[in-house]
């Protein structure tokens, strides 16, 4: 791998993050008014009387640096972004956005990382088996049922799952992440089991909704690859079927799927918003919705920024891996 290629990709990554941060900085400032005034106006409209409001507003403006010229604000902002200081949450004031995020992130990443990877593996396998001779009928049947289910939006699927498994059959909990009172018990077998148990339904709704679509994509690629001359030659070479399947067919058909996987991994930090809301799952999606509802701009901005960074990093990683997966993609050459 050429260092030049790596350097270019890295510069590209930093550029994307810088642009995203800048847009993130500019957008709220384009809106008329001033956040502190807005808060006071809201409080006053609710009938509260605040003495010395003008002074307090000035104090806060100074404290948040809003009295500085725009370019100084911008530099301060970039500095704090670099140190991952996303500021205070407006709704949960003494708490910082980073604190909120750190509390929610493990839940979301745990749920979405697992489901995204699992969905990728299952979809690739299923899509490949769809077009392979000798695939048992039962696999075809399961596959087509999953493709059918994938037409249902995942939040609708979540509601159906809650209805069937939580309310009617009462096997799984309808929401939350642990039994009440089990939060602070630390890492133990029972708490791990608890977490798995509570995240089964959310995970299932995401999996069921996503496998079918990606499996169809994989199937399409497999059909294309199976028509290639090199598959014919592989068979003529007398290779065992399993080799041809894995090293020739799947190996080539998987390339676009891997790119897709990287991008969805980048989206992991933003959470599966509707699923988290429906299952009251305390992940990123949940606090994002909460922040939007509560006009908690700093939190919304912070999460948006994290999302951009994680997608950019995922794309960077795929850029680095891709030439290794597909040697036709060249390193550093124009």
């Amino acid at each position, binding site marked *: 791998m050429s260092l030049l290629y790596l350097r270019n990709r890295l510069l590209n990554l930093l550029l994307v993050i810088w642009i995203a941060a800048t847009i993130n900085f500019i957008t709220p400032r384009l809106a008329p008014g001033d956040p502190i005034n807005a808060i006071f106006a809201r409080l006053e409209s609710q009938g509260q009387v605040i003495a010395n409001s003008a002074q307090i507003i000035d104090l806060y403006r100074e404290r948040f640096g809003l009295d500085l010229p725009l370019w100084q604000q911008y530099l301060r902002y970039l500095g704090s972004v670099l140190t991952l200081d996303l500021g205070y949450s407006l709704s949960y004031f003494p708490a910082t956005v980073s604190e909120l995020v750190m509390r929610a992130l493990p839940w979301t990443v745990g749920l979405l990382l697992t489901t995204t990877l699992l969905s990728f593996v299952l979809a690739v396998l299923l899509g490949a088996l769809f077009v392979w001779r000798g695939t048992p009928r039962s696999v075809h049947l399961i596959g087509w049922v999953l493709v059918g289910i994938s037409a249902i939006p995942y939040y609708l699927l979540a509601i159906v799952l809650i209805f069937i498994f939580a309310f009617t059959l009462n096997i799984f909990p309808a929401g939350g992440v642990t039994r009440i009172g089990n939060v602070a018990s630390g890492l133990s077998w029972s708490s791990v089991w608890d977490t798995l148990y509570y995240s089964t339904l959310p995970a299932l709704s995401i999996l069921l909704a996503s496998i079918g679509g990606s499996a169809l994509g994989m199937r399409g690629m497999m059909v294309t690859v199976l028509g290639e001359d*090199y598959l014919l030659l592989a068979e003529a070479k007398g290779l065992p079927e399993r080799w041809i399947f894995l090293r020739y067919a799947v190996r080539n058909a998987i390339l676009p799927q891997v790119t897709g996987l990287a991008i969805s991994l980048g989206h992991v930090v933003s959470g599966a918003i509707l699923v988290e809301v429906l299952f009251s799952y305390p992940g990123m999606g949940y606090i994002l919705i909460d922040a939007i509802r509560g006009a908690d701009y700093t939190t919304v901005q912070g999460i948006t920024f994290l999302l951009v960074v994680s997608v950019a990093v995922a794309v960077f990683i795929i850029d680095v891996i891709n030439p290794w997966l597909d040697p036709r993609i060249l390193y550093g050459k124009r």
Partner: protein
Amino acid sequence: MNQSYPPPTSPTIPKPILQVEGLVIHYETPRGAVQAVSDVSFSVQPRERFGLVGESGCGKSTLVTAFLRMTKPPGVIKAGRILLNGVDILALPKNEMRRVRWSQVALIPQGAMNSLNPVMRVRDQIADALVAHGVILNQAALTARIEELLARVELPARVARLYPHELSGGMKQRVCIAMATALEPKLIIADEPTSALDVVTQRAVMEMLANVQEMVGAALILIGHDMGLMAQVVDRLGVMYAGELVEVGDVTSMFKSPQHPYTRALLGSLPSPRERKVRRAIGGLPPALIAPPPGCRFHPRCPEAIVACREVAPRRLETTGGWATCHLLDPTQASQPLEAADAAPSA
């Protein structure tokens, strides 16, 4: 090289390496069966170079695909036998057929450009055939063998480390040739091996193929539609038309005196520098094989057709150096020209 090969022209008359008997292959479509290969019989001797020519869609590729038993649905082998080294490959169990492929019959595919796996190094693509057939399993021996194979087609050893997209078209084709000889097969099938190359490269690749074939001591079936190329390379020639083999013979006598009107038409269409124009083209188009014409399949386009051609399928008749299926060669057929027969009632 530690093996020594007998000289190319061995005096003994061995049994054929490939013997095809009454082979019938159909493509089953909703509209009916496309009769892609109809009752084809011929044989190829060890070390022989056999050419197979015919227009696009006449069944050449369908035919040779069957020699590897790789006919895919909707294609179905309806009848006939394919004896490879005396063994009927159509009757072999699946796993044994897999072992026969490449070790006894190898393929140099039509589209060499796309016949190599784009994400595997040349080395690994040659190695997997050796490993799959259990020939060589140790890394050092494998490397040595691959370098030797590449040297056969005059490629440097470093090519082994390259990916297909880093090779030129001619190099890819040479890799395919090297690959085909990896297990020293008794029969090499080359399906239009030079069709995607320019004339200079074509010549080099053809020479390479002929040399390697002689070195390995394999028979060669060369498929193509370039009569000029065939004349230079093959010993015997088979002419296919609309799924049937219409004439087989040694290449010199066939060029000197083609017996079947279709062979004559094919040779007549060769351009010549002395007459700078397209020479006699064959009128019309080949028939749809879903409902081939009755009698001789060539009769609608045949300038010499007689009444019998329309009604009776011609027999196989001996010629000097081979055979042909044409009523004109049959002394028992009354030779009333077709035009005269059509003209008679109305006149």
